[in-house]
């Protein structure tokens, strides 16, 4: 763990967790982190959020699961994952070798499922925080079914916070009329941080078969197409609550990441861009350092929220 090499200007803190820099891989786009070890220096990464982990392994939805759209893609993976137990036993030991923050993204079909997954993960060593995925649009129970309701979200947040041995990040759904109402309810329920946005529900229809292109029917839209919506929502939430925010949605470049920070985010997660540019996180980290050089910033966090 070569702590020396980290640029101190990029360090950020969220709920007491120190990140070497504000750039993370987003859940569901960064596997279990290890898949990137061949491509980037994981020690240089601020952190990453795992694929959504449930108490028991899940098969996910039948194919086709993804379809590209203009400026983005729709996915309906349906949370295929190895399960919290296998993650703790098989993945975590390997991840502990790296100097980066591992966030466990947690999913369940019911409140109890979420709590059970957290219970299992509490045993794991090397997890920095939990990210409560109450915004996955590709499941018939849990996820967005909870996350689109302020009261259900608050209720689960409260329970999860009680059951959790670690800081709790709650990941917001963008599929709502007023994301700040949601954010306030979840903040009051005890969340330590909020991350946003998850994907936006969409669909794509094959005009020759006249059927939806995804087996699930609808999917979640991600990628550069959604960036303007995501930045706006971060700005709204930054005005509404006093929690550290993690900005997500369409980031593919340094200036994209800076937009989120200027809108009020403490850190960012990069999702879809990892697919078509697997070293994008490294490039953005370097880009943020150059931005600090250019504007003589002592800390990237000094520009947080300036565009509000």
């Amino acid at each position: 763990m070569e702590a020396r090499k980290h640029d101190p200007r990029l360090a950020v803190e969220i709920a007491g967790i120190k990140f070497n820099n504000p750039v993370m891989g987003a859940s569901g786009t960064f596997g279990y982190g290890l898949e990137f070890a061949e491509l980037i220096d994981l020690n240089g990464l601020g952190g990453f959020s795992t694929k959504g982990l449930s108490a028991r392994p899940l098969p996910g939805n039948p194919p086709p699961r993804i379809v590209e759209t203009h400026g983005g893609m729709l996915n309906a993976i349906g949370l295929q994952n190895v399960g919290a137990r296998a993650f703790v036993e098989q993945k975590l030991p390997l991840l502990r070798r790296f100097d980066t923050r591992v966030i466990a993204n947690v999913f369940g079909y019911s409140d109890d499922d979420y709590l059970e997954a957290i219970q299992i993960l509490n045993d794991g060593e090397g997890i920095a925080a939990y990210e409560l995925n109450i915004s996955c649009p590709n499941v018939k129970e849990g996820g967005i079914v909870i996350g689109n309701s302020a009261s259900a979200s608050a209720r689960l947040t409260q329970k999860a916070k009680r059951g959790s041995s670690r800081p709790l990040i709650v990941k917001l759904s963008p599929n709502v009329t007023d994301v700040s109402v949601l954010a306030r309810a979840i903040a009051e329920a005890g969340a330590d941080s909020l991350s946003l946005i998850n994907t936006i529900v969409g669909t794509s229809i094959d005009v020759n078969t006249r059927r939806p292109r995804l087996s699930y029917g609808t999917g979640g839209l991600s990628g550069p197409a959604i960036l303007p919506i995501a930045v706006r929502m971060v700005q709204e939430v930054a005005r509404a609550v006093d929690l550290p925010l993690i900005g997500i949605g369409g980031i593919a470049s340094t200036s994209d990441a800076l937009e989120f920070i200027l809108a009020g985010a403490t850190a960012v997660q990069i999702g879809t861009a990892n697919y078509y540019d697997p070293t994008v996180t490294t490039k953005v980290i370097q880009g943020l350092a150059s931005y600090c050089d250019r504007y003589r910033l002592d800390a990237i966090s000094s520009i947080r929220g300036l565009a509000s």
Partner: protein
Amino acid sequence: MIDTIAIVESNDELSPGYRLLVLSFGREVEARAGQFAMLKAAEVFEPLLRRALAIYRQPHPRRLSFLYQILGRGTQALSQLGPGSRVEALLPLGNEWPIDVRTGLAGVVVPSATVPNPDRNIVVAGGIGSASLLMLCEQLAKEGGETRLLFGAGNAAAARGCGLEDFAALGLPLTITTDDGSLGERGFVTEPLERLLREEDFSGAIIYSCGPWAMMSRVAEIADRYRLRCLVSLEAPMGCGFGVCVGCVVAVKTDGPPGYDSYKRVCVDGSIFSADRIEWKVNAMTHS
């Protein structure tokens, strides 16, 4: 696996809608038969995702060629690249054709129970699926066993675009079919396959196949009927190509109830699978 920028050496049309792309790399690349790359023109903002193309040939340690059909926006963008253009490339990806079956079918995730005879091979190529099979055929030709090559395409021009000349040059016994009869037999490539198995003794042979889903599904059926080992290289829409999006899955047969193992990723668990483990009825493709 490396993520790098390659330079276009040439990108010539073989036949309308089909091109051969030769890329040069800054360093040596180790590519094995059946592996693929994720490619994208470097200065193109749309479409976003890289496209999966099989490694067709390796003319030089720092050079690879790709044979592709122009279908949509991604392959269209590739088709516009001239010599000197930059291409973003992630490679090599996926498992390889398990050619030396004597040492076990390493790399193929779901092993089969049938006992293969490594000296008898049937290669069934359908359309641009051929691109994944040339290096395999080269090696099978070298190994010296008995190898039959069945090559199907839409018509004579498409067959040329799918590299027919390169396959013919290997000197393996070759049967050609076209949908419209403009070259070789008229009909689907599965017809000469059935005839071959019916009329000759190919017990213990291994069938290698790549082509459209419907064709491979039919090949798998035939192989099953004749109790032959069959390996297929599958296609699926790919988000990443290296296992992280879990978007490229195919349904496989499992013993228990649906679980984490019900779906396998084509990009890292394949693209080559044992045909008898695939749930052919759960469609992996949007366009099949």
